[in-house]
């Protein structure tokens, strides 16, 4: 199959070179530029969160708390969680890949509200600056979960400001979700019916519904905590009749759907990569699309599975356990559909596909361990232990981060017009996969053996597994640093990618790389189904 090299496309006018200067970037309303702004910001936050993770794993090499004081350690794991959850994972794929691709995938010139898009980035930046100020000023030591009354009454750290930072950050998320919903409803090109939409869009739609419905609840919850900090009025304080468990209900009402905000976009990426690198339409399009919606809906009904031992009634526990098993079903359906998509494909194991296959494996393990936590017979023993830590890192890191990296590697040529080194791509993918497993598999064993989470020091019999975990983390860290280097290097040294280096289906590949500011020379008229790989070259071309 012919390669798709085009003479110097990066010199054609595109969204990157259409004008220069800091003002043209900071006042842009082009969704692609805003996506790049987000990409830079969240990469910075990722490495800040990663730095805290490094400190945690170093401290846990030995049973004693000898690297830092207990208070410092408590702040380190709290900031790690806050930065990673709110400032990396929640925005990651939607604000970068979603922003960049959704208008293109539906044949539109931009999102429905470009200025609100820019506003959402500024809100993110303001909240991130406030959080960095909090970090520099000593951080918080409440955990990212801010349980009361510790956070409202007993903690001696910057709970108020951290709460405000997350409150502000929430609006960034809400505005992104609002923008995507309206865009998908109203901005589709002629012929782009719902059933022809790439599943990337379906998943982001489901994500956006959660963002819009759930985020306001965490906002008001943290606002109540902030008010209690300042004016010492006990909305959650039992001494005046308040209920600390009410905080947990309100917190988890958002924070559980939040994990679906983090994973649905990853699933979005999966559908695009696996179809392209198997050269096949997705198996069971309607089921995958509806499974996304199902996850979003049922995901709002399961929050108290984080609270089985919190003091809720046994009957509430039974209801939430049952519903938690329901929510597992649509995720399982998706995994089977992706696997079936590979059946009788023509599979190419390029870097994005390696990340995708890694995702399937690790997300499956993470999801399976969720079944253990939903099980009332097991959860009381393993909740609040390293079993839970391992579970959510499998989903968030083994799942969401791998999908994010896979998506970055898949659409990098589209966004930049350049290809990166395939060898380094594969090396990094393997390092990340291996390092990740070594870091987190031992933690399942640690958890069942009884090691609680958030422990600065631990009893000596847990050391061996902790050492293994830290060893894995060092490999994982190296794996994450590599893409930073070779992706940046590709901007200058990478091969010119051409419009469609993967011979992929999808409207975004039918325009130049990098795309022009208004995405398409002419508004496309869609007459084909999604993932119509029959019309495409039978294999992924090699770019020299």
């Amino acid at each position, binding site marked *: 199959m012919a390669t798709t090299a085009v003479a110097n496309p990066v010199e054609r006018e595109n969204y990157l070179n259409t004008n220069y200067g800091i003002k043209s970037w900071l006042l842009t309303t082009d969704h692609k530029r805003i996506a790049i702004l987000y990409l830079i910001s969240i990469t910075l936050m990722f490495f800040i969160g990663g730095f805290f993770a490094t400190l945690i794993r170093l401290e846990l090499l030995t049973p004693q708390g000898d690297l830092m004081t207990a208070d410092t350690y408590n702040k380190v794991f709290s900031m790690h969680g806050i930065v990673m959850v709110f400032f990396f994972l929640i925005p990651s794929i939607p604000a970068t890949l979603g922003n960049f691709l959704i208008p293109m995938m539906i044949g*539109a*010139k*931009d*999102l*429905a*509200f*470009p200025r*609100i898009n820019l506003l959402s980035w500024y809100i993110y930046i303001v909240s991130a600056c406030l959080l960095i100020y909090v970090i520099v000023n000593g951080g918080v030591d409440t955990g990212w979960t801010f349980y009361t009354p510790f956070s409202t009454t007993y903690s001696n750290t910057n709970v108020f400001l951290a709460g405000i930072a997350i409150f502000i950050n929430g609006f960034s998320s*809400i505005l992104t979700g*609002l*923008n995507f*919903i*309206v865009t998908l*409803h*109203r*901005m589709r090109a002629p012929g782009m019916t719902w059933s022809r939409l790439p599943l990337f869009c379906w998943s982001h739609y489901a994500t956006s519904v959660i963002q*819009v*419905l*759930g*985020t*306001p*609840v965490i*906002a*008001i*919850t943290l606002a*109540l905590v902030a*008010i209690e900090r300042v*004016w*010492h*009025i*006990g*909305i959650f304080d039992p*001494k*005046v*009749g*308040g*209920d600390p468990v*009410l905080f947990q*209900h*309100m917190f988890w009402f958002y924070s559980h759907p939040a994990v679906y905000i983090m994973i649905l976009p990853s699933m979005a990426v999966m559908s695009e990569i696996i179809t392209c690198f198997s050269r096949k339409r997705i198996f069971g399009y309607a089921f995958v699309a509806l499974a996304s919606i199902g996850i979003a809906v049922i995901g709002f009904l399961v929050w108290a599975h984080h609270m089985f031992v919190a003091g809720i009634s046994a009957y509430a526990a039974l209801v939430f356990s049952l519903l938690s098993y329901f929510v597992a079903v649509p995720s399982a359906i998706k995994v089977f559909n992706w696997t079936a998509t590979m059946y009788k494909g023509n599979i190419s194991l390029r870097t994005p596909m390696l990340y995708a296959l890694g995702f399937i494996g690790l997300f499956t393990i993470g999801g399976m361990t969720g079944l253990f936590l939903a099980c009332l017979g097991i959860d009381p023993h393993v909740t609040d232990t390293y079993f839970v830590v391992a579970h959510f890192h499998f989903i968030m890191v083994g799942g969401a981060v791998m999908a994010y990296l896979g998506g970055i590697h898949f659409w990098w040529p589209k966004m930049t017009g350049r290809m990166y080194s395939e060898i380094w791509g594969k090396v990094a993918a393997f390092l990340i996969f291996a390092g990740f497993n070594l870091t987190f598999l031992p933690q399942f064993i640690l958890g069942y053996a009884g090691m609680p989470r958030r422990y600065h020091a631990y009893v000596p019999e847990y050391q061996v597994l902790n050492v293994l975990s830290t060893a894995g983390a060092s490999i994982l860290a190296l794996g994450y640093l590599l893409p930073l280097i070779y992706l940046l290097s590709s901007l200058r040294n990478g091969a010119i990618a051409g419009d469609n280096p993967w011979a992929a289906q999808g409207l975004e590949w039918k325009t130049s790389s990098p795309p022009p500011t208004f995405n398409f020379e002419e*508004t496309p008229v869609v007459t084909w189904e999604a993932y119509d790989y029959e019309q495409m070259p039978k294999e992924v071309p090699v770019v020299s």
Partner: protein
Amino acid sequence: MSASTTEAVAQHSLQHHFATMEQQRQSTTLGMWIFLVTEIMFFGGLFTAYLVYRTAHPDVWEMGSQHMEFWLGTINTVILLTSSFFVALSVHYAQRGMTKITALLLFLTVLCGIGFLGIKAVEYHNHYKEGTVPGPWWHYNQVENPDGTTRPAPHELQLFFYLYFVMTGLHALHVTIGIVLLALIGLWAWQGKYTAEYHNPVHISGLYWHFVDLVWIFLYPLLYLIANKHA
């Protein structure tokens, strides 16, 4: 305005990423509705806390409600309902291109909003004097018994007032935002920015105001009208 001028105004208002005015109108309207849903969820957290604590302490809630100034709350309800009527009328006239009347009605709405806030300020001040502002300003510690003796005020009363202030405070903040928004829209309407073909900003601002009114319709009975069966 002549037909060609109104059309020019409309085309000028078409943003570049939309293909038609109709697409823009539908998008912005949908956007406002979704935003209002987020507001429902935002207030919803407070209503949930209210529900939980009222179920746990129904007597205290009744006591708290008796501390509300019934007439001030009722007048405020009438003011807000009237203001929503003005807003609805303003949209009606905007649809007919009668922008000066639109603007006047919006300014009347703004006046109603300011009146609402003024009465709330009076109420807040009275609570402050009475000692029922929670936190450092709380000094309401004795309750009268039916037989004239006093007993200590239940400490959950602070919870009731906390929720009262946060819920009505958050609502007042939204009223303030609405006042600014409608004042701006009214000003632009006066300046002829809207026509019969293009007046969606009036429509969606009106939606926002109606939502703010609706929140009050829930707050008013929940805070002011908890009947005291024993009085």
